[in-house]
């Protein structure tokens, strides 16, 4: 019922992408995001598409899983696309009634759509191939220098990993409560907006109660195990770079340079 949410959902598989160090994946994803926002010309676009296709192929995650992440933002995509299409001034391409589509508008809208879609798919590759724990470990390690300027890096990472950890639990819980209320004749589908909102009360109240109960239990359990923050804390699986990580770093830097060089050329 609620299984469509893939953002932040790990897909287990045995692939070279899964085996990469999370820091490498974070860095590569960042390079990738920079590249999709600064590329120019069709050749660069082809390079990005090829790179993305290659990574998706290597990750062994079914492509349908990545597209699922797009479903949640379809509305934003359409909205932003339409705005760009009609609101950009420039040379007239098509005109009807009071609306005008300019050449620049069409270009902007299609570029924006590609960027958003590529952004979501690219980041989905990372979240689908990295467990939430690895991800926050990677973030913590990558942000360590920020500690110098008093940023509570460990606490932020901890909060993130707890939040991520609880997403599937809360989804499951929602599913359970929904079923229980449906068994009592609750109707979540029919009716207008007000009726639908009212129908959510029997779902939301127990969900909040259970979220607070879980938070309380977790805090107690952490305290019982003498949790005291990041100071002097060691890891069971410390992050370690392998050769494949080094190779990935080199490839991604070459990739970024290539994209930047392609900006200089007219094609």
């Amino acid at each position: 019922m609620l299984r469509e949410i893939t953002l932040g959902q790990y897909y287990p598989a045995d692939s070279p992408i899964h085996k990469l160090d999370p820091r490498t994946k974070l860095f590569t994803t960042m390079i990738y995001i920079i590249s999709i926002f600064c590329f120019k010309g069709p050749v660069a676009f082809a390079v990005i598409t090829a790179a993305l296709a290659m990574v998706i192929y290597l990750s062994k995650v079914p492509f349908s899983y990545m597209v699922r992440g797009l479903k949640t933002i379809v509305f934003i995509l359409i909205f932003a696309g339409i705005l760009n299409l009609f609101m950009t001034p420039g040379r007239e391409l098509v005109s009807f009634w009071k609306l005008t589509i300019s050449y620049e508008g069409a270009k902007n809208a299609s570029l924006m759509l590609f960027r958003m879609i590529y952004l979501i798919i690219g980041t989905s590759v990372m979240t689908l191939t990295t467990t939430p724990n690895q991800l926050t470990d990677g973030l913590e390690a990558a942000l360590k220098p920020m500690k110098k300027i008093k940023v509570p890096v460990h606490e932020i990472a901890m909060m993130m990993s707890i939040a991520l950890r609880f997403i599937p639990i809360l989804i499951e819980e929602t599913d359970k409560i929904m079923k229980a209320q449906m068994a009592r004749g609750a109707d979540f589908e029919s009716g207008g907006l007000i009726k639908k909102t009212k129908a959510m009360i029997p779902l939301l109240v127990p969900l909040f109660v259970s979220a607070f109960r879980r938070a309380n239990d977790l805090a107690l359990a952490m305290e019982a195990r003498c949790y005291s923050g990041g100071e002097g804390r060691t890891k069971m699986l410390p992050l370690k770079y392998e050769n494949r990580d080094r190779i990935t770093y080199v490839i991604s830097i070459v990739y970024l340079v290539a994209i930047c060089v392609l900006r200089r050329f007219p094609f």
Partner: protein
Amino acid sequence: MSLILDNISHIYSRGDAYEKKALDGVSLKIEDGEFIGIIGHTGSGKSTLIQHLNGLLKATEGSIYFNGQDIYDKDYDLRDLRMQVGMVFQYPEHQLFDETVFKDVCFGPRNQGLPEKDVTLRAYEALKNVGLDEKYYDVSPFELSGGQKRRAAIAGVVAMKPQVLVLDEPTAGLDPQGRDEILDMIAENHQRYGNTVILVSHSMEDVAKYVDRIIVMDDGQVRFDGEPKVVFRHYKELEEIGLAAPQVTYLMHDLKNAGYPVSCDATTVDEAKNEIMKMLGRR
């Protein structure tokens, strides 16, 4: 008037890495007024099975007939089915939401579209039947103790007067006294209304005392189906699938093996006592 499951299979997350076959060709016929226990260890498919009974889960294969009608028919009203097949989930107290216990119990009957007067009557009747003291009716459900919450939640389903009442581990997490009270209450209500009751549990002891028929689930399949004493004759096989017969079954078998002329069909302590007394009197 019955519930028929015809060769039901259910596969979770079909076609990806999480694929799991939870039910594998289950066929059952449940008659009106039966008191049934469904037993199986964790992950044997009990919970999946019962969620098919009121159409919350749709079988990957097979069909289900309630009172002769196919519930997977396009124009079959699943909401109506859910009123007829009441379901009490595991830890039902987690579904409580309204300001007072009484209002919460009214939720089900009100969804049935009954007039307000009947809703109130049903709620009173249900709360009385589950043995919740009247002083708790106007209290917030979140202020009750664990056992009282469970009673209130069960009342929320009982108030809908379902033809079939399904309870998924209604005694999980309760102390022995609370457990007996809840099970006694369920058995009493079964006798009072003569409705069908399906009790899911992994405790043989609990189930043996109350039900007339036991269905043993293992690995998504029905392993045994019959009267408790018949099922418990297979106590060796039950052990193999991670279950155990009631302790008296073991006692009676031990006595028999030691050469005493007893029947091994006793499933409750009382029956065992009678059997032993009979044997002692005979000698």
